């Protein structure tokens, strides 16, 4: 049996189950898999966290270095987010320059971090127009069983939450001090399986999906980013319902991020 036929049988099965409100792994449509957060996983990073959502794993390392602010924002530090879908984590990932899928994960996570003003970039300025901290948020996927965006986001906020500015090493201050994280954005991803919209899709569910939607919320009741992906469609009412659910899951996940802080 070819992979294509097998994939089609699996897709049909997933959709049949979803029509009865069931899922392949026994979860209900609004059940999120177990999330674990392991802060400080990498000692060489200035902040790091290993996040698992079921079999999906994302490792984020934050590096902070002195650099130059952008000419159009002389009073602010620089923050860049990058996600690598490295080939070790899935047979579907290939080496080489980032593919559109990896770019999408990076940009959706970056958008939520930025729009939520997670890090007050003005506080990363050392000398206006001359010197500022550059904050590199690098995410490596270490396991891919779906929902990479949520995993990447949780890893990024967890790593930022525990990050320490190496000010002493770079002669910027007498002592190192913690990075000030003022908001906690969290992404929550859903996919459509027929008429059912399920949270936290697995790899197989993403392949069977008729559209994916991600909603990033913060602790103050704001939606800070959204992204519809894959082939498929959502009605405005679907979107409104999904946003409500994203707040419920988001608040719970945020508690977990706070609890994991050292």
């Amino acid at each position: 049996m070819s992979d294509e036929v097998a994939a089609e049988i699996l897709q049909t099965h997933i959709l049949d189950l979803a029509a009865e409100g069931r899922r392949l792994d026994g979860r209900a449509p609004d059940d999120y898999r177990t999330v674990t957060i392991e802060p400080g996983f990498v000692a060489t990073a200035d902040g790091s966290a290993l996040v698992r959502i079921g079999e999906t794993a994302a490792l984020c390392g934050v590096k902070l270095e002195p650099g130059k602010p952008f000419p159009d924002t002389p009073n602010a530090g620089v923050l860049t987010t990058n996600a690598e879908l490295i080939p070790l984590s899935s047979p579907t990932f290939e080496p080489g320059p980032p593919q559109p899928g990896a770019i999408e994960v990076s940009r959706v996570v970056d958008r939520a971090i930025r729009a939520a003003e997670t890090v007050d970039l003005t506080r990363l300025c050392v000398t206006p127009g001359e010197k500022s901290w550059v904050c590199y948020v690098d995410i490596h996927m270490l396991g891919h069983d779906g929902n990479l965006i949520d995993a990447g986001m949780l890893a990024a906020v967890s790593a930022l939450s525990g990050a320490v500015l190496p000010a002493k090493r770079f002669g910027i201050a007498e002592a190192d001090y913690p990075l000030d994280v003022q908001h906690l954005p969290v992404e929550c991803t859903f996919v459509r399986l027929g008429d059912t919209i399920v949270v936290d899709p697995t790899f197989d569910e993403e392949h069977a999906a008729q559209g994916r939607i991600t909603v990033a919320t913060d602790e103050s009741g704001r939606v800070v980013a959204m992204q519809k992906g894959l082939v498929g469609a959502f009605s405005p009412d679907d979107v409104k319902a999904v946003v409500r659910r994203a707040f419920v899951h988001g608040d719970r996940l945020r508690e977990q991020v706070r609890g994991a802080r050292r």
Partner: protein
Amino acid sequence: MGSVGAKEVPVLLDAEGRRIDGRRLDELRPIQIRAGPLPQADGSAFVEWGANKVMAAVYGPREVHPRHLQQSTKAVIQCRYNMAAFSVDERKRPGLDRRSQEISKVIAEAFESVVFAEEFPRTSIDVYIEVLQANAGTRCAGLVAGSVALADAGIPMVDLLPAVAVGKVAGAIALDLKKEEDNFGEADLPMALVPQSGRLVLLQMEGHMTEPELAKALDLGVEGCKVIYEKMKAALRERYSVRPLAAEAA
């Protein structure tokens, strides 16, 4: 959104509820759509939307390049959204940056959601979108141009795909942001609607909105899309209407 280090923030909304260019909150910028400006393409469209100028061309169904992307059960839909170096105030380095690659991906997925791709197995339908002059809302203008170009190429689809961005400007939900509103506003939410089903096939958002604001933005965007939908249909009718012989002679 662009609050960090922003210099002078212009007055985005005056006391009478007029926007920076005099529009009401629910008013679109002027839009002109021309179907078929490129005779060598299988389908094409040119969209002038406010100060945006966007050209789209469709080639296909044709052979897939690179070959390994070929699918045995359906056509692959490939999209390249690109901004010309001279399309923005400060010269943009030519080529696809990460933003353009992400936009190309979500636009391709939006088109794939409406095209009957299974009718053309082992082929590629290529949509090229070139932003020649940019003033916020280029992905929506690109979608509109690409969609009209697909129709002009005779590709069977569920429906045309009108698109528009809704945003939050000086605390108010506003339709179709222009550059200043995009740069200094609080949120931007581009969307593309399938008018037949009332469903959205492209949806992105950046900034911050409360739940009620978001609901309002979605509803406002759907209304905006319906207006654009009529203009898209009119452009195609204009291209394919048969002129009476007497008019040709005159």
